């Protein structure tokens, strides 16, 4: 056989097909469904940092206002309730209280 008919034969092979088995089709489609399925996460995971930092800040504020004794107990260096509020809001808070 000369090379020209061989080239023709090789070119014909380019469009050749082989029927895949039904089992392979089933495996491939199962893979598609498994890989593309949305990942279910607990709803609080979605909230992430949005709930963490503001939540901690609010808890700290509430603790300072509602449970000052507990704060003094944990931080003995603070002299008084006023000093604690000063640390948080500055002198303007004290001024507002006296008005």
């Amino acid at each position, binding site marked *: 056989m000369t090379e020209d008919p061989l080239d023709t034969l090789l070119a014909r*092979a380019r469009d050749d*097909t082989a029927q*895949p088995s039904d089992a392979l089709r089933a495996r491939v489609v199962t893979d598609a469904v498994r890989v593309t399925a949305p990942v279910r996460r607990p709803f609080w995971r979605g909230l992430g940092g949005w709930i963490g930092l503001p939540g901690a800040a609010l808890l700290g504020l509430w603790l300072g206002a509602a449970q000052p004794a507990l704060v003094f107990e944990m931080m003995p260096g603070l002299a008084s309730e006023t000093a604690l509020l000063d640390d948080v809001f500055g002198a303007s808070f004290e001024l507002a209280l006296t008005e």
Partner: protein
Amino acid sequence: MDEDGQDDAALLAQAAGGDARAAGVLFDRLAPRLMAFVQRMNGGNRALAEDIVQEAFLRLWRKAPDWDAGGPAQISTWLGRVAANLAVDAHRRAARETALPDDLDPASDAPSAVATMIQAEGLSALDAALARLPDRQRQAVVLRHVEGYSNPDIAAMMGCGVEAVESLTARGKRRLAELLKEVS
């Protein structure tokens, strides 16, 4: 675009959204040609070809959410390249395990293969002859002369130099012509 009005990229986008029907249609459309190519690459091993086709599609599903539908890449071309790389890798693993030299002709003393070829015609004869080539020669010939990849592309896939690819394709094609001449 197929007769059902949906192109491959649209089907892939639907498959990426979990549509099993779209995944099946895309498989039906692309897998037959891919199967023929991979079988030809690995000398007719159907079980290995099915494993490679499954892995190629698995990689396609993983890539689906990021697929650029407006880009120049065709899904069929992308799948073909992935499958070619997988077929070459499979050959490398098998060669390491069996430690056969690349240029060994595994069927040179097998008269039954010649008898098979004599009775075969056309593409069947081509496949029988290809199966008798050494693995790397066969892969280089299929990638170059059937699939139409460039020599630098084939060199990258096969992990060798361009000159080695030129040598493999030239020797492979010469040997192929001799084998088919025996048949005719």
